[in-house]
Structure formats: C-alpha cells, structure tokens
C-alpha cells in the first residue's frame, strides 16, 4: 500500500491512476493512502468549472489545459459525468473533447461517474484532488454539470469557480433558481459568436449587480450553508476588498478568449492570496470535510450497533406492536456507545 504512495510521489502515472481508482471504490486502504498524501498537498491551484450540459465545459477545459501546458505548467483534470441510476453504468464522454492534449501525459485527465451517490461524490472528488495535488500538478481543474446541491458541493473543492453560461439561456429565473450566481467567481459566456450572446452577457451583468448589493458575505459562493456558517462568519472580511465576478466571453472551440479567461483566473488567485481569502476558504473546506467524515463514520458505527440489536426491521416490528417506541429503541442502541464515552470522559 505504501509502495503505491511512493510510486505516486515519484511521479508514476499508473500509480496515480490506481490511487484514484481506490478512492472512487473506497477500496480497503484508501483512507491510509489519502492520509499519507495529505502532507504533500497545498501547492496546486484548483479551478472548478461548471455549467449546464452542452455549455462547452469540456471543450473549454481542453483549451485551457493546452494553454497552461504552453506556459510550462502541468495540469490535472477531473471530469464528472452522471451515471444511470438503473444499471449503475455510465458512458463517460468528456474525454472525446480532450483533443488538444492528445498523447500529452502531463495532462492527467480522469473521468469519474457520479455513481448515484449523495455526498460520497464530493468526498471522492476532494480525495482525488488531493492525489493530483500530491502528484505535483500545478493546476487542477474539476469539471461538473452544474445542477443541484451535490455539484455545488463538488465545486467548492475549488479555489476559483468558473460558471459557463451558454448564450440564449435567457430566462433570469432559471439561473437564479439553480443558485448558480452565488457560486461563481468568474462567469464565462461561451459560444460568444452565437446570436444572443450579447444579451446573455447583459443579463448576467444585471443579475450580478443585484448580487453584490444583496449579500456582502458572498465573495465565494456564500460558503455559509447552515453547517459551515460558524466557520465562515468568524473569518469574513477583515479586509474591505471584495471580488466582483468578471464576465468573460469565449469561443472555446476556436480558442478565442481562453487567454483572457486564464488571466482572470490568475487575478482571482492573486486576490485570494492578497486578502487571505485562500486560507479562509481552505479552513472552511477542511472544517466541512472533517464534519462530513465524522458524520459518515459515526453513521457506520451506529448502523453496526443497530444490526447487532437485530436490525431495523425487528425494531420496527416492536414499535408497530406498541411494545416499544422509537425513542427507547434509539436509547437502547446507543447505550453501549454512551457508556464507552462516559467511561472515557470520567476523570
């Protein structure tokens, strides 16, 4: 197992690929691997790219990766595609668009399927980013369809979030509903050569003005969901500087606007360093990660206890027969845990 970590740190591509597989499968030993890798991370710039299907995410990511390579940087890409809830299978097609980096091993492109999971995917993504970071990638791009909480969680893995908006997606309400305005640090109107692009840029601009007036805390995607709230508030705005998300126009398949897009990413990266926001974001992320892991592991412990008590079905039987009630069941299941903790905490 440690061999795999050594191989990864030594720059062996197949080791990196295998580590990500273990992370995806939660194979035995993956936790130890990620733990060992953690100390080697923290150097990569992580960029999240999200947007509706067909917005041109993969094409843009391809061109951006190629541009970074021209500048001598190494790139890791994680592309997340939905999987069928019925068969569990998936066709992961983002790779088809990676034509500009064909055969270049220093662009490490990995497709991941959503595997119909809630929460688990964002953990897997975070861990995969850890692996790419430890491998020594300078820039890591996480690409996902922007729809729903799960994806929003994934994009939060990133230091900088780019939201792609195709022209003519019009209807203001649609975008507000998706909550997508709040998470973007940069907005990209891709396919800017199409009719309606100007209008989309205009609409976006108006909506973003509304946003900066509305909430001051929202410099990075209103990081404050209920749980992360405390962590976020303690760190808000010791400087007055805020980030106004720029709007960039690109025609990704012709590489137009790609350089402008990258320089905006760089500006944001500098902004994060200058204001200390990068550190705050990292703190928030780790806080959220610790909470998530705690919850998952605690759930597992409790599920084990429940099984030892005869499982949920028999408990439900007893409750149905009015022999006991849900509160008593929970007390009984958790009794050994409580005893342990009490013994531990006793002086």
């Amino acid at each position, binding site marked *: 197992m440690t061999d795999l970590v050594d191989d990864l740190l030594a720059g062996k591509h197949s080791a990196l690929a295998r580590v990500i597989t273990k992370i*995806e499968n939660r194979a035995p030993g993956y936790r130890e691997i990620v733990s060992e890798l953690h100390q080697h991370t923290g150097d990569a710039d992580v960029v999240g790219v999200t947007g509706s299907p067909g917005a041109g995410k993969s094409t843009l990511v391809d061109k951006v990766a190629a541009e970074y390579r021209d500048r001598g940087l190494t790139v890791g890409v994680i592309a997340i595609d939905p999987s069928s809830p019925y068969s*569990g299978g998936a*066709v*992961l097609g983002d790779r088809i668009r990676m034509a500009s980096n064909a055969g270049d091993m220093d662009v490490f492109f990995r497709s991941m399927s959503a595997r119909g999971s809630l929460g688990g995917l964002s953990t897997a993504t975070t861990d995969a980013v850890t692996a790419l970071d430890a491998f020594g990638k300078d820039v890591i791009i996480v690409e996902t369809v922007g729809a729903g909480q799960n994806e929003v969680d994934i994009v939060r893995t990133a230091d900088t979030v780019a939201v792609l908006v195709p022209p003519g997606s019009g209807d203001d309400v649609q975008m507000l509903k998706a909550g997508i305005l709040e998470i973007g640090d940069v907005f990209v109107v891709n396919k800017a050569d199409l009719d309606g692009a100007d209008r989309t840029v205009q609409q976006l601009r108006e909506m973003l003005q509304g946003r900066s007036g509305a909430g001051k805390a929202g410099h990075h995607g209103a990081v404050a969901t209920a749980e992360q709230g405390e962590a976020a508030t303690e760190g808000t705005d010791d400087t007055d500087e805020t980030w106004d998300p720029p709007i960039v126009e690109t025609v990704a398949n012709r590489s137009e606007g790609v350089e402008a897009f990258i320089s905006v990413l760089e500006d944001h990266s500098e902004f994060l360093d200058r204001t200390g926001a990068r550190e705050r974001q990292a703190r928030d992320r780790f806080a959220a990660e610790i909470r998530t892991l705690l919850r998952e592991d605690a759930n597992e412990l409790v599920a084990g206890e429940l099984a030892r008590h005869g499982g949920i079905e028999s408990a439900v039987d007893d409750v149905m027969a009015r022999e006991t009630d849900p509160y008593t069941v929970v007390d009984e299941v958790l009794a050994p845990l409580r005893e342990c903790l009490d013994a531990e905490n006793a002086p």
Partner: protein
Amino acid sequence: MSVEQEQGERTIRCLVAKVGLDGHDRGAHVIARALRDAGFEVIYSGLHRSPDEVVQAAVQEDVDVVGISILSGAHNTLVPKILDGLQEYDAFDDRLILVGGIVPDDDKAELRDRGVDEIFGPGASMEEMISYIREHAPER
C-alpha cells in the same frame, strides 16, 4: 457510491477505443451502450485516435478493460503499438485487452501472442462479450 456496493463489489471500467484512420464507429457506439447497460463504466475515446492517445486514456482512466475497435485492417501495426505503450507505463499486466473487428485467423494467433486476451469478430454477441469481461476482469 451506493450503500449496496459499498463493500466488495467494484465497478468495472472499460475503454472503448477507435484507432487509426477508421471512421466506422457505429459498432463501437453499440458496444459502449451495451456495456453501460451491463453496469460498467465506459470511457469512449472518440474517432481517429493514435495509439499514444489510447495508451494515455487506458493509463489515466485506470480501466480494467481496453477494448480496441479496428475495422481498417491495420491491426497488425496499431495494436502492438498500444501494447508496447501499456507496458511502458506499467499498465499491461492487470488489464484485459480485447480487440473487436475483422481480423483474419492468421493474425489472430499473432495478436494473442503479443498479449491480446480475446478477439471478437463479426457475429459475436453482446452477451458473450459481457460475460467474458465479467469472468476475466482482472483481480486487483
């Protein structure tokens, strides 16, 4: 990851690759869909890939199965290049290598010698291929 597959059972990943100057990908599409419906994760390469690109995809995606579709007759040139590349990146031993297409019998033997695990020609059924993969997917 769903609760059911949390322990033990892992998802088999397959690369479906089109190499060389061969624009016929109807079959590759059908196979990709069938594998997906069988519960596998399928990475489709797109058309006209070079052997290097196939190797890059197979290594980075850490697939269990490398499926190479060739209808151009250039299998004797292209397939060995892919096999060499996989070996170079230490990604050959624990991978199932399948070739699909029209391969004359004489060539089949040679491809097998070079390390191809199975060759599926015209008339091979989906079920055959899927159960072959299920049976022979490498232990990891």
